[in-house]
């Protein structure tokens, strides 16, 4: 067998480094890095910058690894949906066993290194997050219940809690409320997406709420979760990481979020089809801005406290 025949016998495409990076869902990783960093920096204890950087890197790699495991498991439905057809596995750039090996290897590495760099609680939470996303969400809930995104959202909600655990070594009402904020934000965010990607989910046979219970029920659920979200978002203002800046921001943005949800609730399919899901797409885009700005506001509060610029008297109810 010649060198040339060895090459030809192999798959036509040999993966590049960038293909493996794509398996780690870099866009999701960016959000994880951001929320974990906020959780770490707003905590009352200061962390050495090197330890903070190393810990956030481990959390990001752990999140990426769970993304690779998700792509390994979901390769069949990714190939059906337009949004995911170009992912590395369905497009033939990476094989499924490669994705599994990368996901498992990086999961173990990230958890072990976070245990060494940070502490065992943070490492334990990261391990649970990976397990939750890869096994509970991807393997079990996603294809079996319309509430997949409600419970699966917990996986995305853990990073700020892990960041907080790196700094404090514990769990507190602040980290639980940051968790709740992302947890309750996830369903309306994804249901808005599901409303204008309904055909995709139908084709892939994924039981998203609009597929199983119809769009009217979905719109009602979006409004209900948005009310809950506003309560949690504003409650966070009255903890030791909140303050006047965060309170003002969260109140204003939550009012806009509720208005958007109310508009979706009032619309029906004919109105949505009439303007190509304009309101749904706007609500989806605004939901990303909403979460980002709230976490930036928490960072600003932390900066103000560091320079003693915060309100001298601020009610702390939690």
């Amino acid at each position: 067998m010649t060198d040339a025949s060895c090459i030809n016998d192999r798959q036509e495409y040999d993966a590049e480094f960038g293909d493996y990076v794509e398996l780690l869902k870099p866009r999701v990783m960016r959000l994880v890095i951001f929320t974990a960093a906020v959780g770490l920096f707003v905590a009352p204890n200061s962390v050495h910058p090197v330890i903070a950087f190393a810990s956030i890197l481990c959390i990001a790699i752990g999140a990426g690894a769970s993304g690779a495991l998700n792509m390994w498991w979901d390769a069949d439905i990714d190939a059906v949906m337009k949004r995911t057809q170009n992912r590395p596995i369905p497009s033939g750039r990476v094989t499924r066993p490669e994705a599994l090996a990368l996901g498992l290897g990086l999961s173990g590495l990230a958890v072990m290194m976070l245990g060494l760099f940070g502490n065992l609680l943070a490492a334990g939470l990261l391990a649970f997050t990976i397990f939750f996303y890869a096994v509970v969400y991807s393997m079990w809930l996603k294809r079996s219940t319309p509430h997949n995104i409600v419970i699966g959202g917990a996986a995305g909600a853990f990073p700020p809690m892990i960041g907080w655990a790196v700094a404090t070594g514990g769990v507190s009402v602040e980290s639980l409320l940051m968790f709740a904020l992302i947890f309750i934000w996830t369903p309306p965010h994804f249901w808005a997406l599901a409303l204008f990607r309904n055909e995709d989910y139908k084709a892939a046979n994924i039981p998203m709420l609009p597929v199983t219970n119809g769009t009217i029920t979905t719109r009602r659920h979006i409004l209900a979760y948005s009310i809950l979200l506003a309560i949690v978002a504003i409650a966070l203002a009255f903890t030791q990481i909140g303050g006047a800046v965060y309170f003002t921001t969260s109140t204003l943005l939550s009012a806009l979020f509720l208005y958007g949800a109310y508009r979706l609730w009032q619309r029906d399919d004919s109105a949505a089809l009439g303007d190509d899901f304009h309101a749904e797409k706007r609500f989806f885009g605004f939901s990303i801005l909403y979460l980002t700005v709230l976490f930036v506001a928490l960072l600003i509060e932390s900066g103000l406290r560091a320079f003693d610029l915060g309100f001298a008297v601020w009610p702390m109810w939690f």
Partner: protein
Amino acid sequence: MSGIHKEHELHQRRRGRNIAVGLALGAMVALTFAVSMVKLSKPQDVDTTAPNYSPNAEASE
């Protein structure tokens, strides 16, 4: 023999991949070293999680 000297496009791509993996491993070694330095440089009466933690280190001097 001339065919062996000509580099296949696949080899070039693999070289790029190997360099990237090498750099990633190098970065990990550097990071582990940096964290070790930070952890070991903490005074032993401050770092309550250190195996050599001794709350009375200053008093005993």
